[in-house]
Structure formats: C-alpha cells, structure tokens
C-alpha cells in the first residue's frame, strides 16, 4: 500500500537524494533549480529515475521523460503526485 504522499514530502525526498547522490555541494538546489543546466547527464538521470520509481513505487512512462518534466524538482513532484493518484 502506498503512503499518503504530500507534495512537500516528495520534494524534500528528491532534493535530499540529488544533494547526496548526484550534485556537487557547491550547487544550490531548490525546487526551481534547473537540473539539466546544473549538469545532469543520462547516467544521473537514470539514477534519479530509478530512485523515484523505487521510493514512490511508481513506473514513469517513457513519454513523460522529457525536458519539461525533468526540468526541476517542482515539475518532477507534480509528475510523481499525478502518477501516485492514478495508480
């Protein structure tokens, strides 16, 4: 059974993961930071998607993996929130 997710909790979980695993500490990260411009590559994208799918027990459809959805944590949070509601 999925936990009752709130947008704030999703946001915090993603930011914490990105800070610990993907980005250099010198990079300022908040929900509006452009992830692509901050240096994300295909390998780190895949890492992040694997984390999200495992953490929130969802499957992100291929067509949702695009520049708009992956632009920042805000957009990712909206996507995850929508997907958890659907499933």
């Amino acid at each position, binding site marked *: 059974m999925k936990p009752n997710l709130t947008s704030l909790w999703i946001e915090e979980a993603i930011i914490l993961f990105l800070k610990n*695993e*993907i*980005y*250099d*500490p*010198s*990079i300022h990260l908040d929900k509006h930071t452009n992830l*692509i411009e*901050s*240096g*994300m*590559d*295909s*390998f*780190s*994208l*895949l*890492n992040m998607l*694997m984390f999200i799918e495992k953490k929130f027990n969802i499957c992100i459809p*291929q067509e949702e*993996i*695009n*520049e708009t959805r*992956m632009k920042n944590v805000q957009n990712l949070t909206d996507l995850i929130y929508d997907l958890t509601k659907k499933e």
Partner: protein
Amino acid sequence: MISQKKNRIYLNGSDCIMLAFDYQMRRLGAPGNMGQIILGLSSRFSETDFRNQISLVKKRFPIINAVLKRGLFNRIPYWEVDADSGLPYPQVKTHDLEKSTGPATLKALKRDILNQPMNIKKGELVRFDLIYTAGGCMKVIMTWAHVLMDAHGAESFLAIVGGSLMGKTDFNPTNNLMSGGYKNRFFDPPSSPPKWQDAKKFFNRIDNIASAPPVSLYTKYKQKIKPRLDYQIISFDLDETKYLLDLAEKNCGFLNESEYFISSVMGEFHNVCCAKGLDSPSYVVPLSVDLRKKGTRLPVFSNQFATLLYSFKPENLLCRESIIEAFKIQTQDAFRNNLIFANLCALEFSRFLPSWLYARKVRQTLKGEIASIVIANPGKSLSDLSTFMGIPVSYQHHVPTVVIPPGIGVVFYTYSGKLFITLAYLEGMISPVEADEFLQKIRSHLLHRD
C-alpha cells in the same frame, strides 16, 4: 576516499588503468596516454604573466609535478607530492609561427606536440605550448598525462591556470567526489581486498565478449602502421547542433545523445572496416561513465569514471535502428547487473598489479585486442573557459591520444553550443583522406542526410 599521508596520494583504480594504457602505448612506440586541450585566442597575453601564473598554480597544486612511486609492501602506486621538489615542470614552450607560410606548418607543429612523450616517472605530468600565429592571434595547448586527471578535471584545471576559476572555489577536494552511490569505491591501503565477487561480474562480461573476440584495424595492418598519432576535427554550427540534438532526442530519448552519436560512428566505422577488408566477428567499444558529482568545478586530480564494454556483431551494424537497439539492450543489461560497480571493483585490481602485467592481462583476455574503436562524449565544455588570461577564447578542441589497439578514437564535445568531433588515429591506419571521409559520413549520418 582517496588516502593522503602527508605528501602521498594514492592512485584510484581508474587512474591505474590509465597508467596501464600509458605503459601499453609506450611499449608499442607511441608517446603515451595523454589528453590535450587546444584554445584559440584572438589576441595574445604576456608570456611573463603566464609563467608567473603557472608558478602560482604550481604552489597551489604541487601534484602537477608529483613523482609516481609504488608502496614498498602493498605495491600500490601513489603520487609523491613535494612542494619544494624544484622540478622544472610544467614546462612552457613557445613557438613563433607569425611568419609561417601556411596552415600546413601549424598543422605539422600541432601533430609534433601531440606526439612528444611526457616523462611521467620524473614528474612531467602537464605541459603548455604557446603558438603565436599571424594577425596577433595565439593558440594555447595544454597536454596532460591521463593518469593525473580526466578531461573534465583538465578543463577545470585549465580554467584555473587561465585565471577565470582562480579564487572562485576553495579547491578543497572533499572525499565525496562520486555520484550515484559509488562514493565508497576506494579501498584504503592497507586495504581490505577488492570485492572479488562483484568484480567477477565484469570479468564474466569480458569472457562473454571473448567468445567472438574482435579484430581491430591495428592488428590487421600493424606492419604498415606507425606509432605516431594524427587527428582531424569537424564542427557543426549552432543550427546544425540544435537540429541534430533534436534528432538524437527523437531517436534515442531525452539526454541520450551519446547513444545517437555512437550509432552514427559504429555504422560508418563498420563501413570503413569492410572497405579495408577487415572481417571482424565483433566490434568492442569501451564507453566511460562519468561518475563525478555533477556541477563540480574542481580539477580533482584523479579519474572519476567507470567503463562499460559494448559489443556489436556485424549484423547489429546494418542500420541506425539495429545499432540503437543493440546498444539499448546492453545498457539495460549493464544497469540490471550493476556492471558499473562491477567495473569499479575490477579496476581496483589494477592498483595491486604492475602496469605491464595489468596491460598484458587486459590484452590476453580479448586475444590481443583492447577494443575496436574508442568513443567518448565528455559533453559540454566548461563555461569558465570562455576567457583565458583575460582574453576571449574563440574555440576549444579536445585531442586525446588513443590506446593501442585499436589506435583510433572519436570524441564528441560541445563548446559555446556548437558540437565538435575529433577523430584521432595512428598514421597509416587510415589515410587523411579516408579520415576526412569518415568524419563527413558521420556528419551526414548525424544530420540524417545519409
């Protein structure tokens, strides 16, 4: 973490494989495993100022003329860093081509610089060449030993030398340099043994490839090939770059341009091999996975990557779709079996073996081959390199030496939004005309003009 004992910095596994490749290349008469960045400047800076700047940087980073040694008991290689060593490196050489007769002289000089070996055992790890050209322009060439740092590290280092990064970062490398949960890959000496079982997954992958071992152009024609490197570079304008990146996303998915680039190279490389009468049962392509924390602007002074080995059968290389499909299947398999971590564990073995033995093991495993072609995509160049010593940079090129075999490699990189491709190869492997044709076909393929 990287172990530090006063003036002793241990090499990590990725550094050691770079060292083994260096040994392998020198054994075959080539200059060694090096990287090169070329900057084009529209005006000149003062040579004295530059030499002063090098002295400052050397004081701040004495590792740039560290001496390579091995532990007496554990045999693990390390840099012996001595700030007061007084070694005459890095050297700055100047070349005046102000009155040269044409581009051929500059081209020949650049090739000579690429083919000058470095004495890494004596502390020569970085070298600068300043070329003064007509019209008050100049070129700055930084050549570095690949065992010291990767291309990203070299860009950061060059930005520090050029002054644009000086003072912007605190230069205190943290232990946490790696992304994606690979932070704990280093085994501090005296170490626990490497993770043999994890490493075995990577060796199994090599065994699987070795069931149909590749034959490289080098091996087939080694009698005719000289151990001297040549290279050619092509560029795409802003519109072309945008267009082909859109095509890459459409064909291979978001942020997957590497897959698109590789499909273009492999399709055309197969055609080159067929035209030269090479009938290889498979093609092996090693691809580096950049494990550096994203957004890092530190030179780091160690190689932060893992290597995934891709194998293509000739039937996989008939069209773009079949190459992409073969690539995707192997990428999924690599992630499913955690081959990135397996490779890091395998690389740790290289720390305990002498370079010559490790290089021999690598060759033996694939029946004398290391790869069919080397392909790299370091991506966007550092924006801090838009000026150097206060002068705007007109272009930046990457030129690597390429491990032998195969002795041929293709590097993709973008600078100021434009895509560049460098094809580096041993003289005699392909002619300059064939190299140009190869690059033009890659261009057509990338732009869907094939």
